[in-house]
Every structure is written in structure tokens, then in C-alpha cells.
């Protein structure tokens, strides 16, 4: 999947008419990809959706103020004798007091929960993606460039991590944290969130590391790398200045496909009761709302639609990014 500048330009030369040769010569693979993306309507729509979600996440407190709703403000007076909300859709018509209705039992506002749920979702996904990418790229670079025992042991390390069952580790960590930090509520909340990020990152870097290693293996035999070594460029400089720029494409593709995976993973773990308790989360809301699919579907649909839209937009965008960076696709 690597993009080799020489090949790329050769291909372009052979297929494009001579008139544009001058123009193309000045463009990097990234620029080409961006130009392609701009012409992809689906990608652009998805990008807008994703940006919208990011704005919601960033401005969640502002938005809740704007709508006049509040997190966890429910009291017994907000629900009737059956513990169903007394205002808001779908039973009592739309009201700006509670545009998405109130949660049964607790009477908490669903919209506020949804805004903050988006925030948790994207925060977890972004941080985990960045961390996993950094880990994967670094380890992949080192493994690919070093020969002998270091490469072998890193490979072994990657295999070990690939063989660890992600869900079981996540499930095992939760009660350990509770027993360790149970009597320090603030520390517990921090560590539950941190452990979620750590678990997601620790289980998200291996594939990228392998990918990068494979690329580096072929790149390091190239003339420009050989030349750099001959003239005595330090290894670190070779890695980051000579090799890394050639790996931009797989990295970006990995990021754009990793984000939706992490959003889904966060929701899934929250549904299983792992992750940050006390923080609003789509997954936890879905878990609570499942018994109401029949009697109060809006409660369930709001977070489900949130997860669905975000994951789909990110996925389609990721596909488009991959296509755009792939020299073999022509659209």
C-alpha cells in the first residue's frame, strides 16, 4: 500500500497527457489525495457530519446551556407513578424544556445526556486513536529498521498482544480498579476513564505497527535510504525524516479507520458496564434503555442514532481517505 514517489510519478506520466505534466510534478501524494477527496461527495458529507459531532462534543456545556437543559437534574417529581416522565416527547408532545424527553426512573434530561455522551465518545476515540497510532508507528519503525534480535523480539511482542483477548482484559481490569480505588471516588473516576483509554490504546496499535514495519522493510533497501546512511545521517534522522514521510498514507488510513472502531468499542464497553461510571455515555444509556424499546423507544433511539451516524460517517470517510491515498484506485 506504500506510495513510492518514483513509481507514482512514472504512473502519472504514463497515463496523463503531457500538458499537465508540469502541474503534477509539484504535488505530493497527500496533495493528490486531498484533491481527490474534495471531489468525493460522500466523503464531504461525512466530513461535515463528523465535524458537526466534534463541534457538539467540544461545545457540549454551551449547547446544554443554550437548550436550557442540565445533566442529572432529574427528581422524583419529573416522573409519574409508573416512573415515566411527565413532560416531553413522545408521550406528552414536544417541548423545549426537554426536546428529547426525560429518562424514565431517574427523570434526567436525555438531550443533555446525549450531548455529553457525544463528548465522551469522541474524546475516548480521539485520544485512543492518537495514542495507538503513536505507539504503532514508533514500534513499527523501530522493528522495521532494526535487524536481528530487536526486530524478532518486537515481533514476538506484537504477537503476544494480538493473542490477548481484548474483552476479557477489559472485563478483568474493571473490578480490580474498583477494589483498588473504591474508597476514593475521584481517583476511581479518573482511573476508570484512564484505564479505558489505556486498554483501547494498548489493543489498537499492533496492526499499524505490522503495517509500518512491512513498509519500512522494503523502504530501507531503497537508494535514498542507503545514500543517507552512506553519508552518515543519524538513525533517528533517517527514521523520522526519510522514512516517516513515506508512511503518511498508511498512517492516515489507519487513523481514519481506527476512529469509528474506537467509537463503537467505547459504546460496546460502556454497554457491558466497563468504562467511566458517572460520565454520560451513549453505551450506558443504550444499556439502560433496552428494556424500554417497546414502551418508550425514543429513550433508546437517541443514543443508537448517535452511535450509528457517527460510526457510519467516520467509516465512509475512512474508506474515502483510503481510496484517495491508494494509487491503484482511479475514480
Amino acid at each position, binding site marked *: 500500500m506504500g506510495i513510492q514517489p518514483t513509481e507514482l510519478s512514472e504512473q502519472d506520466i504514463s497515463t496523463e497527457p503531457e500538458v499537465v505534466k508540469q502541474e503534477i510534478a509539484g504535488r505530493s501524494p497527500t496533495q493528490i489525495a486531498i484533491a481527490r477527496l474534495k471531489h468525493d461527495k460522500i466523503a464531504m458529507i461525512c466530513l461535515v457530519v463528523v465535524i458537526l459531532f466534534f463541534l457538539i462534543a467540544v461545545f457540549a456545556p454551551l449547547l446544554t446551556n443554550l437548550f436550557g437543559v442540565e445533566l*442529572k437534574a*432529574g*427528581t*422524583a417529581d419529573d*416522573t409519574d*407513578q*409508573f*416512573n*415515566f416522565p411527565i413532560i416531553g416527547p413522545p408521550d406528552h408532545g414536544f417541548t423545549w424544556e426537554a426536546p428529547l424527553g426525560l429518562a*424514565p*426512573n*431517574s*427523570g434526567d434530561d436525555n438531550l443533555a445526556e446525549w450531548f455529553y455522551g457525544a463528548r465522551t465518545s469522541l474524546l475516548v476515540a480521539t485520544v485512543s486513536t492518537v495514542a495507538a497510532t503513536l505507539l504503532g508507528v514508533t514500534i513499527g519503525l523501530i522493528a522495521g529498521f532494526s535487524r536481528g534480535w530487536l526486530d524478532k523480539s518486537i515481533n514476538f511482542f506484537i504477537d503476544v498482544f494480538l493473542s490477548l483477548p481484548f474483552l476479557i482484559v477489559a472485563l478483568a481490569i*474493571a*473490578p480490580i480498579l*474498583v*477494589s483498588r*480505588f*473504591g*474508597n476514593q*471516588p475521584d481517583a*476511581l473516576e479518573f482511573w*476508570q476513564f484512564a484505564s479505558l483509554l489505556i486498554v483501547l490504546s494498548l489493543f489498537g496499535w499492533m496492526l499499524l505497527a505490522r503495517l509500518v514495519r512491512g513498509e519500512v522493510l522494503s523502504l530501507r533497501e531503497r537508494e535514498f535510504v542507503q545514500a543517507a546512511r552512506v553519508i552518515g545521517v543519524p538513525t533517528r534522522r533517517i527514521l523520522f525524516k526519510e522514512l516517516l514521510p513515506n508512511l503518511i498514507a498508511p498512517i492516515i488510513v489507519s487513523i481514519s479507520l481506527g476512529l469509528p472502531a474506537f467509537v463503537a468499542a467505547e459504546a460496546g464497553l460502556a454497554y457491558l*458496564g466497563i468504562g467511566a*461510571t*458517572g460520565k454520560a455515555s451513549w453505551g*450506558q444509556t443504550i*444499556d*439502560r434503555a*433496552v*428494556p*424500554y*424499546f*417497546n*414502551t*418508550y423507544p425514543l429513550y433508546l433511539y437517541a443514543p443508537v442514532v448517535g452511535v450509528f451516524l457517527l460510526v457510519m460517517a467516520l467509516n465512509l470517510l475512512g474508506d474515502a481517505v483510503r481510496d484517495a491515498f491508494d494509487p491503484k484506485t482511479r475514480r
Partner: protein
Amino acid sequence: MRMKRPAAALAVAALMTLAACGGGSGDTSGDTNAGDDPTFKEGGNAGAFKDEAREAPAPIPDDATEGGTLTVLTAVAPSTLDPTQAYYTDSTAILSDLVTRSLTQYAYNEETDDMQLIPDMATDLGQPNEDNTEWTFTLRDGLKYEDGTDVTAEDVAYAIKRSFAIEELPDGPTYQTTFFLDGDKYKGPFQGGTDYAGVETNGNDITIKMRRPFSDMDYYASFPAFTAIPEAKDNPETYGQKPLATGPYKFADYKAGASLTLVKNDQWDPNTDPGRIQMVDGWEFMFAQDTAKLENIIINDNGSAQTTLTYDNVSASSYRQISEDKERLVTGTQPCTFMWYIDMTKIKDIKVRQALGYAYPYEDAWKAAGDIVGVTRVPGTSILPPGTAGRKEFDVLGIGGVNTDAAKAKELLKEAGAEGFEIKFLFATDDDQSVAAKDAIVQGLEAGGFKATPIASTTETIRTDRTDYNSPINVRSSGWCSDWPSGGSWFPAQWAGNLVGLEGMPNPANFKVKKFDAEQDRILDELSPEEAVDAWGEFDEMMQTEEYPAVVTGYGGVAMIHGSKVGGMANDNVRGMPTFARMYITE
């Protein structure tokens, strides 16, 4: 008695425990302000009355048809069906009502909508001697096991001896070790041999000797542990797989944790049994079912669902749907009180304890946890639940056990000079309802001027954390259900000073006040059983008024649903279970 909740309380040594925040079912006591729901039946006297004269056979209702199978779906599963070990509400109800007969039994009384203690295998409710230290029960003639052999007094005596084998058969009721002769020394027939001086037989008579007066023996004799077990056919490890039936139904197939099929026992003679009928051909119990699924099946009422029922409390999400169809909803009481036990060793100022009672966000916490106020959780202020003999209705704080008064709480805290007093309580991070209740409680306590520090635990560890003396908490959320409807099954079991420090923390409030210990001894040793009944009610009021060691957070109630052709289903308010013994299929 232990509740049927999932995972129920296995680790806890006490008679029963309640889930931290869940649990419950609904009752109504006449005086609480909960009963505005018309489905709500008044009362419940939890078998406070006895009816020694009830005649066999039990009457067969007019609309009953013979045949058919009743299906029972439930999200929980009984941990054991060995009669000696049965101590949860579900296992005792299934065994006592359908399979294994005991010396006495509870039967539903339609007129009063409550349970009465009536004779079962015995001809009466037992003959005590003058000071209640010796009880004699006489077996009826014509009692047979499912294999046709006769039930003998020796078999009942063996079953009683077997109940001392706590090591081989753990988790059963343990009053026999406290009250019966040599109860503290005899270790059951497997270790101590069958020579036990506490039980004697003579023809059809069984005489039980006590080492201290035990006036509630007739109630206690209704437990499945007081059935008949032939010694020759007993194997403590496998007997629970197929206990020999003496009742109208016998085990056909039992898969522990999954299903139980009962079929007619043709050796059962209705003329020996004043409490049970045998109208349906069999029973099909399906355990560990998905709650949403089973509720949907029963609510939709199609085909075989018409003869299906559940003994789980209907969830809040389905209650609204079924409450329109009141015919198929059974509500009632359960003799359980939920409490926040205040650790007397850590919160020494009564003003702070009372402030806690004012600040506790009763309705917010109940609703957040999914309880339906007035149905599955009923407000109250006395520790003794409605339906207990001698119960006194009183209201120390004057808020009816439901009207949170944050201003009053702040005032009391100020008077005590304890503003911002830190309250530490447990919750389970992996239980949504527990987390939701925790959020509501934190808000409520902080509004009342406390500092609330929820201590995290998990559903798996919360019971051991709660009963750990070293846990960094100063209130304990739990509860108690009576084994029989008298104060004698309440206060000596949880509020006696000599329980402080024992393994399993049987006294969750660490309540050890000389005056009240002396009063308990006086009631137990000096008063006659009749005087004691009222004395316990007085004791309840006196303790709550003078010490306030517990915030009563409501009584448990039940709201069970059934298909349209299920007949005779009422609430057994001793257990909070359906009255299996008198159920049938309607025309």
C-alpha cells in the same frame, strides 16, 4: 427469610439479606400514603393469624378446570431445592406449596387476603408445654411418599436431625441451633450419628425439646426443613436433585439453574391436606430467563402464555402496560424492610442520625433505582413491616418516611455542629440501578448539608464489603425479611448487642445499647408470648425514638403478572411469592 433476588445473599450468614438498592415488591399498609393506586390491596397480615381448625380437603374453586400445565418463568434460579437447605423465598415456596409437606403450612385466606398458619402433616399446630420448651406434633394417618411407602414420625425426626448438618447442608435456616436442645453441640446425622436427645418419637407423635423457650415453633415448623425424609433414601449430596414428594406434585425432571418439571403425585391424598389442591397436571418452571422476554410473553398473552406466570416483580418499563390489565397483575406485601443502617460506632450524635433521616431522598432514590413507589417500594417508618403481629405505626421524624426535608436536616446538622458531615456508603459500579440510586442519594444528601462520599464496589463484592467491619463506610444499605410475623424474628436477630463483632456482621448498625439489650432480654425471658407480641412493637418505637439507628427506606412489595387463564394466583404475603398451592387453570 432470604429474598429470591439473583445471586441472593449466598455469602451472608444472616437469615436474609436484601440487594443494596434493588429488591422489593410492594405492599400497602393502610396508613402509608402510598396506596393511591387502585390495584393496591390493603393490608397483609403476613400470617399473623393461625387457623388450627382448617379442614382437609381444601376447597376446589368453582372456575377451576382439571388438567393443563402451568408454566412459571423467572429471571432468577433457586440455588438449591434440598428441603433442609431451602431458605430463599422461591425455593421454600416451590417446595412447601407443591412438593414437600411440613408439619405446618401457610394457606391463603381469601376474605382477609393474607396467609394463615394451618396444620399440614400434623393434625394441629403443635402442643407446647407450659413454658414452650417442649413441642409435640402428631402426624396424620394416611400420609404417603410418592413411591407409596408410609410417612413415619421417625422420618420427620430424621429430617429435623438433618437440619443440624450445617456443614454438609449449608445456607438453611438455623434457629434450631439457637433454640433446640443441644443445638449448639449436635452436628447432624452425618457427623454426630442419629442419636439426638432433642427429638423423640412415639407412634405418630414427634416431640421437640428446646433449651430455651421457643414460642414460635409452630411458625418455624412450616419450613421445608420440617418435612419427612426417610433416612434410608437420603444422600445429602444428591437428595436436592429429587426430594421425595409428599405433596400433590413430584419432581419429574430437574436441571439445576435451568428448569424444573413437576408432575402429579398420585400417592397424595387430598383428604389429609387442608391447604393444597391438585388441579393442573403439572408445573414447568423455567429459571434464568431474560426479564424483558418473559414479560413480553406474559403481557402479550398468546397461546400457552395464557397459562404462564412469573414470580419476579414486573419491571418499571412494563408496569405501565400491564397496570391497564389489572386482572393479570397481583400486587401485595412482603414482610421486608429496607434500611440504611447507621453505624453507631461512627455516627455517635443522634442529631446527625436524624438529619440523615431528613436528608435521605426517598422517592428520588427509589425511582432512580427503578422501584415503583407504592407498589414495589412502600414508604414507612417502623422497622417492623406491615403485617407483623404487634406492629406499631409511628413517625419519629414526622415525614412519613418519604417527604425529604433538606432544610430540617441542615438545621439539625448545625445544632450538632456537624455541618458537612461525611456520609460514606457503598454502591455497585456495574449495576445501573445502584449507580442511578447513588447519584440521587448524593444529590439529596448534599442538599441536606452532608458531604456524600459513595464508595465503589461491584455486585460481586458488595455483600462482603458491607459486612466487613473495616469497610470505610458509616452507613449500610440492606434490609431484613421476617421468617415469621413476630418481632421475635426481627430484633434479637439484628439489634442485639451480643451480635456486634460476629462474623458476617449480623448487627449491621453495630447497635449495642445497654438499655435496649436489657429490654430485649426482658421480652424474651420474662414476658409471655402474647405480651411479647406487643412489647416488640413498643420496642421498635422506643429504639427509633431514642436512638434512631436506622433510616427506614421503605417496605418491599410485590407486583407479579400472569396469563389470563391462570386462576387462584394471589400473593403469599409471608414470602412475596404466588400462592402455588391453590393455583389452577380457569375455563
